[in-house]
């Protein structure tokens, strides 16, 4: 689960939405919160649909066998309906796959979806804040771009690992 938060937190921070200017971090932070709520609601809705479908005797076998196809199509349609990016769709698929493979109870699954969404948002917020601070520091030219971004992500990942271990 932690692996999912870091991977998709990093990917969404880099290519999640139309990037807000780094000069205006408050705007970027608002976008992160909005995207996180959308991610949580989309995942919860699909998990609820899966639970309802699994409750019916007729479709239970089909849902079990073709789960990836089922929630993949649902995630794609919901992402397109909300005019989200392609990466949002992949995040929803990965999140639902991991949550549904671990949990069976719907309330626990929704709670886990909330934890994943909040973790991704925390990662993105830290990343945005550090990138903003980096604007005012003299980073060597050889370290600008991907080297410094990966380094930042690695450090945030280590901090979140500590928080994750103490929380769970």
């Amino acid at each position, binding site marked *: 689960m*932690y*692996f999912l938060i*870091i*991977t998709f937190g*990093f*990917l969404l921070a880099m290519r999640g939405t139309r990037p807000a200017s780094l000069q205006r971090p408050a705007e970027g932070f608002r976008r992160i919160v909005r995207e996180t709520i959308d991610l949580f609601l989309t995942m919860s809705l699909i998990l609820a649909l899966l639970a309802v479908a699994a409750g019916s005797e007729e479709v239970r076998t089909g849902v079990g*066998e*073709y789960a*990836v*196809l089922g929630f*993949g*199509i649902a995630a*794609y349609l919901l992402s397109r309906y909300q005019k989200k990016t*392609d990466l949002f*769709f*992949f995040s929803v*698929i*990965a999140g639902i*796959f*991991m949550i549904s*493979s671990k949990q069976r109870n719907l309330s626990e699954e929704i709670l886990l979806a909330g934890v994943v969404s909040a973790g991704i948002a925390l990662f993105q917020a830290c990343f945005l804040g550090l990138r903003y601070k980096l604007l005012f520091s003299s980073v060597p030219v*050889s*370290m600008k*771009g*991907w*080297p*410094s*971004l*990966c*380094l930042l*992500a*690695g*450090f945030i*990942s*280590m901090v979140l*690992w500590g928080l994750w271990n103490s929380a769970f």
Partner: protein
Amino acid sequence: MVYPYGFFKAGIAVLWIVVFLWSTVFFFWFTRRLFPDHLLKHAFFFWLVVWAQAVWTLTKLPPYWIVSVFFLTPVSFLDDTAKASHVRVFSKKVPRYFFERALTGIGFAGFVMLLTLVREIGEKSLGMHVFEQPAGMLLTAAAVAFLWKNQPYRRRSQYPSIAAERKLGPPKSPLMKRKQRLGKG
């Protein structure tokens, strides 16, 4: 992909991703004109989801691999008007489009195997706990990105060589021109 698997399993998974990428590129390059314009992108994502389901059913490989395929796929992939130019390889003309995709696949496989090797050494041989989590991979990726960005030949190419400078001649600034005219240059 590196994180949950060992060296051997990561190798098989990356091999599958590269083969699938090449098959996808090959398939859609030749069939893209058969799809209506507004359905082409949807068809591509549907293709990914169907294969994710098929591979999960057959091998129990989690569907995260489709994210790698998505990122390796070029932006112009679904552009109906795109044309493949040619590049010479061993005196034979090969379409640049497929040549670049082949290099992308090989590069991706090499990069993943390098990360896996570093993780195996760092975690098992050196006992570094940072490699048990994604932070280790991100720090390794930072090191690789640093080395890639500061390649010696790239740094050299930022400054023109002496031979190229002689060929171009002296810079033609107004001050230099004036000096040349006055015979001081």
